[in-house]
């Protein structure tokens, strides 16, 4: 046991920048948010003036007033996650196993959307799905879409936009875990007379589960709090909880409710994710 003191400090020194950053930009704001969430308006005060009264009832009102948007957020996020998984799995599989020398090019293409802003891409979707875009008139001419049916301002557009925007977050972890699969395990399955489907079901899928878990988390969590897609592609009937928080904060200047909603959303996501990881097993995350 001859560990010198300076050496034992090394881990702390390494942790310090990250910790200091998170403390300043995460912990402190969270504490502030928690304080705000139980405030009530100063009687006779001006718009935006609140005082601490430990009104935990704010949480009850915030939740009851916006049950619909909470439910919608989780349903939309779940749908987007399922669609993204459906699209990303074959994609990641193809890149990992079937792309040969094009592997790197394809990976760059998966990441390519990040080179443009999130907002720009969502606005582009609005144009693509718009009345005078290419898609809608074409579908109408083919009688696949009614003359009065529109695509933007619908739940379909919002979920589609979310699926698209979060697709790389699903694809990359899937690719990483598929790519890591030892080809000998697949050969071994063949040697044991498993056909392609059985091999895929019994070997590839179980070995790629860490990617599935990571990908679904990376998609579901930001999707549940997203408000950009609903704001740009949706209508008043497709508003999500993020839109409510934005409106409470900036439009109504009701900081306590905005803070209470943020906390409720955080807690709800935390609970769902914990249950999910419990079920999936934490070791799958690694």
């Amino acid at each position, binding site marked *: 046991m001859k560990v010198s003191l300076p050496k034992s400090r090394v881990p702390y020194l390494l942790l310090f920048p990250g910790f200091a950053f998170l403390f300043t930009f995460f912990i402190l704001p969270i504490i502030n948010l928690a304080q705000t969430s139980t405030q009530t308006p100063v009687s006779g005060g001006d*718009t935006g003036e609140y005082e601490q009264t430990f009104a935990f009832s704010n949480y009850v009102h915030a939740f009851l007033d916006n049950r619909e948007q909470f439910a919608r957020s989780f349903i939309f996020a779940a749908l987007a996650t399922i669609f993204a998984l459906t699209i990303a799995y074959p994609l990641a599989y193809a890149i990992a196993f079937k792309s040969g020398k094009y592997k790197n090019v394809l990976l760059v293409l998966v990441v390519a959307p990040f080179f443009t802003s999130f907002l720009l891409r969502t606005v582009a979707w609005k144009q693509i799905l718009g009345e005078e875009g290419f898609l809608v008139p074409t579908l109408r001419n083919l009688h696949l879409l009614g003359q009065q049916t529109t695509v933007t301002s619908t739940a379909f557009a919002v979920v589609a936009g979310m699926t698209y925007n979060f697709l790389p977050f699903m694809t990359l972890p899937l690719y990483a875990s598929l790519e890591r699969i030892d080809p000998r395990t697949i050969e071994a399955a063949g040697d044991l007379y498993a056909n392609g489907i059985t091999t895929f079901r019994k070997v590839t899928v179980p070995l790629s589960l860490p990617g599935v878990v990571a990908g679904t988390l990376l998609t579901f969590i930001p999707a549940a709090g997203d408000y950009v897609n609903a704001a740009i592609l949706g209508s008043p*009937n497709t508003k999500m909880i993020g839109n409510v928080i934005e409106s409470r904060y900036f439009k109504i200047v009701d900081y306590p409710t905005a803070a209470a909603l943020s906390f409720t959303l955080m807690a709800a996501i935390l609970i769902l994710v914990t249950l999910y990881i419990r079920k999936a097993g934490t070791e799958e995350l690694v």
Partner: protein
Amino acid sequence: MGTERPLSPEARSILNAGISRRGILIGAGGLGAAGLLASCSSGGGDTAGAENIVRWGNWPLYLDFDEATKTYPTLEKFSKQTGIKAKYFEDYNDNDEFFGKVQAQLKLGKDIGYDVVTPTDWMAARWLRLGYTQKFDLANIPNAGNILDSLKSPSYDPNRESTLTWQGIMSGFGWNTEKNPKGIHTLDELFAPQNKGKIVVLTEMRDTIGVILLAQGVDITKVTEDQFMNAVDFMAGKIADGWIRGVKGNEYAEDLTSGDATAVIGWSGDMFILSSENEGKFDFAIPDSGGTISGDNLLIPSTASAIGKANGEKLINYYYDPAVAAEVAAYVNYVCPVKGAQAEMEKIAPELASSEYIFPTEKTASRLHVFRSLTPAEETTWAKAFQQAQGN
């Protein structure tokens, strides 16, 4: 004005590259974002006092801009005339958002980085109420007397001691003339079958609900909470039944050009530009039952230094010169608040001198109404009802 969501302006400029004037307008919006960044990084601009400067925060696309030189011609002239360097920030995108940004500093009496700001009437009222403004030294603003009589004594500043109107904004009906060949003059015509699911209304509560209230025969200068809530319910019903597609800020203009919207409750200036860009495909009218008018106001924050204040007053005085006001109006197309500007407009753009959008005649003006000012408690409950009606 109420540019609602800070949609990445580069995004819009690229997507709208095909649309002439919009493209230009939106390009300039990018400057707004740049201005915002600049003011953020330096903690809200430089401090006046050390230098002979004036810092002005205004809405995007709200001052004459020369695409070729990337400068604001009237502002350049001001600097030349007075030797005061003007720093112009197009970062006033939303009344509530801007207020949220500077409120803490105003409370502490710390410089907010602006010597002149441009809030809408109701927000200007809030600044005054909270003591966040400075009274003008009218000796520095001899042109203040040029303000239109109709704007001389708003309830929040009856003697115009701390505020002067920058531009006036009319709201009414806008429509696609192909889908609505007879035009839209009543609420029933707005909710006509051909517009079902393609109607967009403004996020600015006082304009959207104001127009609905007027159609319901309510005097918006005296509106009660019951009447207001009744109109909000009407809007909520039209949203639930799928008539209203969205509640938006300036973006409604894009919905009109993309065909996603065929009829709107919108702002005169926007509609004027859309119409001239699209060869009459769009039109605007003040509803038969009346439209709303509001103003954005120049005022000096309580945190401006003595030099900043004096320079701000000189700036305001300069823009109340009829010739300068005409130059601005020819670009922005909103209601010009300065007497004598119409005569000046004859000299520079005679076709605009007769525009009802810029120089409403007395008959037109009589059809425009101002939403009454709200108490802080009303502001919160009414805004909440309006937001909930749109799904928020």
